[in-house]
Structure formats: structure tokens, C-alpha cells
């Protein structure tokens, strides 16, 4: 019986967290293999519907990480991302989504060790939460199968 290994997608900004992850590599820090990074120019660029797409298509956990407040390479992108996250989080919590699966963090280009720790922490947390199975059926095909598009029960 092999242990469940979560799939974690990380949406990171190029200037801080991506560079911080590079530094973790240069420093040969060792961390869990479960995380895959997608590079954005800035956390402000991250469309949160992509998070939903990720969960819909097999991701069990997500990390969003960028520059510390006041240090954004583009001045304010991370502030917008943070605000967006606060509103988005209330919305998906209301929907019944377990927001423990999403971790919002700040990792600077100098914080290679922090990146490694973050990956390990999130991997452990999501492994304990188990595979993400809710809401997966709410995709286009199954929606068409619902009676009149209305959900009975």
C-alpha cells in the first residue's frame, strides 16, 4: 500500500520566489519532490481561476508565493495578489472548499531556505489532508447531465 503523494502546483513570481527557489537549488537544499513551479512575471498576474483549474485537473494543493509587501519588482503587483486572495478565499470558503489546501506566502530571492521549508511544510500538510476529490465532478460534461441544470437534493 503506497503512501498517497500529493500533487502540488506552485504559482510563483519570477523576481522573488522563483529566484529564491533557484537559490535553494544553488545551496543544494533538499526538499520534497511533490511541488511543480509555474513561473509568472508577478503574483499580480495570477488569475485565480487557474487555481480552480489546477484543482479540477488533479492538483491536491497549491502554493502562491511572491515578493514581500513593499518589495514587489513591479511595485504593487503583490498587493493586488494579496487583496485578490483575501476576497477569493472568502468566496471559496463559502463554497465549502478547504482553504487549508492553498498556501499564500512571501519568499524573497534571498530566502532559499524558506522556500525549501515552505515546500516541505505544505507537502506534509496536504499529505495529511489527503487527495482532493470534492468538486471534481462539477465540470462541463457532468453539468450537462444534471436534470434541467438544477441540483436536486
Amino acid at each position, binding site marked *: 500500500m503506497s503512501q498517497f*503523494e500529493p*500533487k502540488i*502546483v506552485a504559482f510563483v513570481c*519570477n*523576481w522573488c520566489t*522563483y*529566484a529564491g*527557489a*533557484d537559490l*535553494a*537549488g*544553488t545551496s*543544494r*537544499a*533538499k*526538499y520534497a*519532490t511533490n511541488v*511543480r*513551479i*509555474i*513561473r*509568472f*512575471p*508577478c503574483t*499580480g*498576474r*495570477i*488569475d*485565480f481561476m*487557474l487555481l480552480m*483549474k*489546477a484543482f479540477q*485537473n*488533479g*492538483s491536491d494543493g497549491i502554493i502562491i508565493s511572491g515578493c514581500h509587501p*513593499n*518589495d*514587489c*519588482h*513591479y*511595485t*504593487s*503587483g503583490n498587493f*493586488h*495578489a494579496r487583496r*485578490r486572495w483575501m476576497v477569493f478565499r472568502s468566496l471559496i470558503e463559502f463554497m465549502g472548499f478547504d482553504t487549508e489546501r492553498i498556501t499564500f506566502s512571501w519568499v*524573497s*530571492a*534571498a530566502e532559499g531556505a524558506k522556500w*525549501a521549508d515552505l515546500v516541505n511544510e505544505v507537502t506534509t500538510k496536504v499529505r495529511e489532508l489527503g487527495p482532493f476529490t470534492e468538486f471534481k465532478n462539477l465540470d462541463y460534461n457532468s453539468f450537462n447531465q444534471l436534470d434541467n441544470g438544477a441540483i436536486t437534493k
Partner: protein
Amino acid sequence: MARIGVFICHCGENISATVDVVKVAEVASKMQGVAFSTEYKYMCSAPGQDKIVQAIKEHKLTGIVVAACSPRMHESTFRKATAEGGINPYLCEMANIREHCSWVHERSEETTEKAIDIVRTLVAKVRRNAPLFPIKVPVTKTALVIGGGIAGIQAALDIANAGHKVIMVEKQPSIGGHMSQLSETFPTLDCSQCILTPRMVEVSQHPNITLHTYAEVESVSGFIGNFEVKIKMKAKSVDHVKCTGCGECWQKCPSKKIPDEFNAGLSNRTAIYTPFPQAVPNKPVIDRANCTWFTKGGKCGICQKVCKAEAIDYTIQDTFIDVKVGAIVTATGFDLKHTDFFPEYGYGEFKDVIDGMQFERLASASGPTAGVIRRPSDGKVPEKIVFIACAGSRDKAKGIEYCSKICCMYTAKHAMLYKHKNHDGKAYVFYMDIRAAGKGYDEFVRRAIEDDHVEYIRGRVSKVYEHNGKLIVKGVDTLLNSTPVDIEADMVVLATAIVANKDAESVAQKMHISYDKHHFFAEAHPKLKPVETNTAGIMLAGACQSAKDIPESVSQASASASKAIALFSNNEMSREPSVAAVNNTNCTGCLLCQDVCPYLAIEKEEIKDRAGNVLRYAAKVNSGLCQGCGTCVAMCRNKSIDLQGFSNEQMLGEVMSLLNKPF
């Protein structure tokens, strides 16, 4: 029909030791859109790059993915090779399977699977890459140098001598920085002011340099080649055009009890003052916070009365000027750790416990004691001096883990200066290590020990306290079996840690450059890019980046200058084309994007019919200003604005393909 070439690099063994590169290449060859896949030991080498060139031609490739190190390392290298192969360089992306994979995981199936996932993600992105063409912007051939110490001076002179204009901004009333406070410099014991002041004069007289003293940078906006900087010219209260520098005003000023910053608090100055006799410009300013006229509602006014040139004007306000520059050199310098950070040494409590800069001023011929080393408490010449190295530096408990680099040398210098002036005096240095790695440096320290008989004791001092009018220094000699050593000293000099300026954080934030936890400014790469920052067009010089001595500051300044000069060698600069663009058919003109753009790069465009009537409005991106952050894209409600190089299709493609779902 995509025909992508995938190149997996071994990077020697850096990748191949933990990732099965052959398997990755094999799996990649079957990925959707891939027409050619191979692996090679060193992709960034000349033969490696040539493989790309040849493959493009042979296999008629339409896109390239190089799976190797971080794009932050070699994206430009491989894009150049792609261009050489005959296709648009922006059709090339890098998959980071080294820093993000092989270097951080052990050899295992999971590691190879991860590398495959990463490659597949970038292949999916490249399938949606469009050819992009660099944007040309004009370059303003003026440099801004922030800071008028030796580093700033060197950078300004280098750039000015290359024929370009320089604007120098210095927040003190005079340029010169900390070097002007030094008595002699190691390892030659050259008189510091003698070698510095000619440079200072050169700066003030250079036709290409505009000097603003008593001024600070208020804000920086724009981007490389096209910065817009607002400078605050603090109110000097003295019209420097009319002022002749006669000195009547500060000679007659009744406010004489203000601690003199130039003399490190060992003497006082007046409210209207020039910081030191060789100041450039040699014209006074009024320190309004300590001037009676300003603090007590118009009382006094003596300086204005005695000024024959009628140069004093209390009504002058702070003014702001806007300048356009193409490159910025940050040379804002350092500070020393002060105050009661060292209660165990009694610093701040015992008058005769002083720091290195205060000792410099005592030793300096133009200092408060005319170059005689005297105790601040009673003016007597000390017979025994103890120097404590590493006061605060290399000390985790005090939060300063780094070495301040210059203290071993200046402590030896101070001990030597004391002994040269007081042949019968005794000088002791408590040290941990001796860091004298420069040219002639170790010989200099040996001179102090062997010729001038300074006693070096390897051990730390646990306490300094007063007893019967002496300072008892409790230390230990670790080379003599850790014997405790108690010295009854007349004066103690602490080589306190070098720290960043108090306002370093706010300066960095104004300029959008990174800084570390000690507020030293961050270089772009610790090994290979020591003078550039992560913000293109902004360079670093001197101790604002990390503690360093004068030769290093000068070298770094010249290096920064060379970067600026390289930038100015063309009239136009190519900008990365990763900018936003609006599809104005869909755009509803809500202009949310305009609200969030930090660069004011979005304008309102009128969509007109043929008769010229305005039908509606839409957003429009100024590609000269756009920096490519993409915040507008995430804001747009109907996806009318998109970011080239990180488009919606590309990012969705990456997410879907990462999770191995079709898209």
C-alpha cells in the same frame, strides 16, 4: 502545426547525476507538438548551442525547449542560439530541471518524473508562444549618482569623463562622505583628505557634473534608459549664489552647542555651519532643527545681520526638481553601530570608551584635539589604550553575523597612529582573527606588531567597567591557555560593526531595489553581477552593498560607471517585448487595468467610426512604459488584455499540461 525541439542538458553531472536525462529525452520525444528530442552534456557550450542551430534547420523546428538550469541563467544564451538558427528567439523557453529539480532532490523515479513534468509544462507553453520583436526605446544619456562619498565621486567622474552628463545628489551639506572624516588611510597612511579633496573639487568643477548637495531623492519612476526622478532640494536658508563663503555667519552664530556630526559627537558646532573646512561646496547651510530663529519663532537672526552679501534667507522652502536619467548609481554608504548596543563595554556611559570613527577624529590634525589623542573625559593623553576588535560583528547574539571587513586594518592603523604620537604609551588589541587580505595589508599589521610594539592579544573582552578612575578591561588570552587578562586602561576604542544607513530601507523601496535583512542593498548575483541590482539600470557602488574598504569601493564605482557607459553607448535600447496588449474589439473600456498599472502605462483610447464620431472607449497599452507585470491581465473581467510571453493561453496550457490533461 507545432514542431518543437527539446534539448535536455546533463550539465556535466549536475543534472544527470539525479535525473535520468536519457529517459526524459525519450518521453519528451513523444509529447504533443515535439518533433525532435535529444540530450547533451553541456547545452550552453558552443557545440551545445550549435546543436540548436542545426536542429532548427534540419528538422524545421518552430519552437525550442531547453531543459537545463534556470532561465535566469541562460535564457538569453539559448534565445540567441535560436535566433541564429533562423527563428524568432522568443519561441525558445527554458525548463528549469537543475535548480528546481536535480539539485534539490535525491536520485529517484520521482525526480525524473518531476523533470518530465517540468519539460512537458514548458512544451505546452512554447506551443502557444508567438514571435515577439524587441521594442526600441530612446536612452537618456544622463546618469544619476546618489551619494557623494568616494564611491559616488569615482562613479560620477568616470561617467562624466566618458562624455556623459551626471547628476549627483548628496544629502549632507558637503560631498566627501566618511572618507573625509578619516585621518590617514591604510596601508599607506596617506592623509585621507589630501587624496580625497582634489577629487571633490574635480566633481564640483566638472562641466558634465551637476552637483546637488543637501538634497535627497524623493521618488524614482520609469525604467532603464528612461527614469524619472524627483529630487528634494532641502532648504539651505542660504543663497549659495550670493554667498561668498566668508564665514562671518558661523563665527558669530550664538548656538554653539550642537553635537558635531563630522567630529562624531566629540565637539560642537553652530546652527549655521559648513561641515568641515574643505567642504565642497564651501558654503554654509542652516540646521533648522537647532536654529533659534526657526525653533523660537524668529528670535536671533544674527547671521542675517552680519552677512554682507545678504545671502541669508529664512523664507527659502524645500523645493523639488524633476530630472530624466538613463541609469542610476546608488552609492549611499554606511553607518557605524552606535549607542548602548554594547552595555558590557560601557559605550555611551563611560566617556573614554569611544568608537573607531571618534578615534579617527582625535587622530586627525583637523579634529577637535588638533591630532593629539586625548581622553574625552579630562583631555589627558592616555598612557594605556585598549582596542577591542569585532565589537558587535561576527556575533549572532547581537544579530550581526557578518564580518565588517575593515576593522582589523583600521584598528592596526589606530594603534600605530597612537604609538607614533606617544612612543611610551602602551597599546593593546584584543582580537579574534586578523583579516588583512589585501595588497600590503598583512605587512601593515605586522608593522604594528613588530615595529610599533602594539600588543595583540587573541581573546574577547567580557566587560569594561570603571574603577578608581581607570577603565578595567576584563579579557582573556586564548593563546596562553585562556589566562584571564585584566588591563587598567585610560581609553578603550571599540571597532564597532559596520551597518547600513538608518534610511537604507526607505531608499531601497523608493528605487524598487532589493535589500537583505541587514538593509544592505542586494546585488543581482553574488559572484557574477556584483554591481548590478535586480532592477535594470540601477547599479550599486561602495559600502551600501556590503562593508568594504576604499580600494574596493573605488573599483566597484568604476565598474558601475562602466555599466552606465555601456548603456549610453547607443541612442536606443532594446526592451524586452514581454508587454501587455489590448484586444479592443472585446474591451469594454472599464479601465480597471489602468487603475492597477504601477507604471501608468495604460491610456484610454477612443474608438471612432469613419465619420469621426466616438463610438466607445477602450484601453490601450503604451508599450514603451509597460514593464510586463501582468496585473492588468488578472484584473480584466472579460480577458481583453493579455501579456505577451505569459498569455492566458500559455499559462492555462502550462497548468493543464503539468497535470497531464489535454488542452
